[in-house]
């Protein structure tokens, strides 16, 4: 199960990076979303995937799930959600003001 998840995360990461390297702004935003999904899946996978066991910290309990990665991933998801929505608005404003969504034309020079 961990292997499948890792492969899935890698695929997400690869597609994300591919999109990040595109010129169109919206594709880049989609790229960041995919990269962050990949990162979150890694985070979840890294502590071994277990089902049906409660997160208990007591002597004598052998079957328990690790609650920490869930806490971490939840925080990371919330943060990347917030940043992504900000990024969308920023990308839209940049597009309306600069009248282009092509990164090549958004390069700019020193004295403007």
């Amino acid at each position: 199960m961990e292997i499948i998840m890792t492969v899935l995360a890698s695929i997400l990461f690869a597609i994300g990076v591919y999109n990040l390297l595109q010129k169109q702004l919206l594709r880049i935003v989609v790229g960041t979303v995919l990269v962050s999904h990949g990162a979150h899946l890694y985070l979840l996978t890294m502590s071994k995937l277990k089902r049906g066991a409660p997160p208990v910290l007591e002597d004598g309990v052998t079957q328990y799930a690790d609650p920490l990665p869930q806490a971490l991933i939840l925080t990371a998801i919330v943060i990347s959600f917030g940043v992504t929505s900000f990024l969308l608005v920023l990308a839209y404003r940049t597009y309306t003001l600069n009248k282009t969504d092509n990164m090549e034309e958004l390069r700019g020079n020193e004295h403007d």
Partner: protein
Amino acid sequence: MTNLMILPIVLPLIASALVAFFPNKLNIVRPVSMILSVIFTIISAYLTWYVFSNGTIVMQSGGWDAPFGISIVADPLSMLLVTTTYIVSTAAVFYAPSSLDEQQERFYFYTFFFLLVSGVAGAFMTGDLFNLFVFFEVLLIASYGLIILGNGKVQLRESLKYVLFNLFSSMLFVISVAFIYAITGTVNFAQLAERIESVDQQGILTTVGIVLFFVFAVKAAVFPLYYWLPNSYAVPNPVVSALFGALLTKVGIYSIMRVFTLIFVHDTGITHQIFLWLAVLTMVFGVIGALSTNNVKLIITYNIIPAIGFILMGIGLYTETSLAGSVYYLMHDMVIKGALFFLIGALVVAAGTSDLRKMSGVIQKFPLLGWLFFIASLVLAGIPPFSGFIGKLLLLQGGLQQEEFLVVIIALLSSLLILFSMMRIFIRGFWGEVQEGITTNRKKVRNLTIPAAILVSISVFLGIGAEAVYPHIETIANMLMDRTEYIDSVLKE
């Protein structure tokens, strides 16, 4: 007393919520922000004094003991940087009303400002790797809010690159946290430091360490990853640039310092040697950038980069002397970068342009501004007896002890070139015939100069009063080299 250590993080958070309620009542928000900043500075200075005299204080949040809960660690290094942050940010609050126009202030400048300070203080004080990520995001989101203030065409374009870059490196941060958790089973700094030696596959650990270094290097603007910095830091309002230049990159380099003196010290032959060469390249390329442009804002922004190189050099050398030099230089650079950005902001207002070729003779109309800029340049370049000199002296001593002569020579040459790049502004901009179009609004320039004057005088004190400051820096360097004290104070039974 233990619980009070959260104050430097919580107080600005409360203040940011408080001022968010009255965005349009500037005549209330301005004085309230100023008073609150001064009070916070006094509180954090008192806490720093307490930590320096009584040793490290660790707050376990929620009453969960160290490896399970999140520890807030107030050790001398963190507290020193937190106080420096507060001093710079207080100066920024006094600078802001004259620098920003009213509409920009109404768009929640003070809210984002306090949020930024809260995030920076949290990043300095946290003792938990994932919590460091969270505080990074707090300060980054605040910085996104600040960088787009003004809403200009160029500004949005550059902010977009800044946001994208930081977003990507944040995701790398999450991934490296995942790797570290998989290898060691913890994200607490102290427990990581304890477990790092017992890990079987040291090679993987080194790799993960370098991935983490990349994350911090993006925030700190180390050599191959600095190209997002100059443009995005030069376009916003001077007060925002000053906050970014003085605080944000320093959080990155602080994280490198913390992580690579506390946790990843198992293979210094690889990691720290890489740092040393990256530090050299950072200095060289930063200085070349500073000499390559005629835009005064860009010159100062490029000068952030060699400073990061100097601090990284101390970490790469990894001796007690060089770390003391790094800490001293870090503290000095926070203050003087704030001051320089303020002065450049004032200069641009005074001259009415940021193009060096078009300005001249400013010193004849604004002598105080001119001389302050002169002193600040000397401080930055490290001319004795100013504070840059003490830091560089310690760094070079460390370099000579390790017999890294080439590194020392390049460091010396690049400080000479830093001085040259600053003097270029002084000679071309301040000397000569009085140019046309120089501002008549003397009051505004004066208001912009005063906060800078305060910061410059603090940094002159750091140099002349080195006798009083240095012993504390030495204590910090001792603690950085001897990891047991940090580990014991966090994981005490």
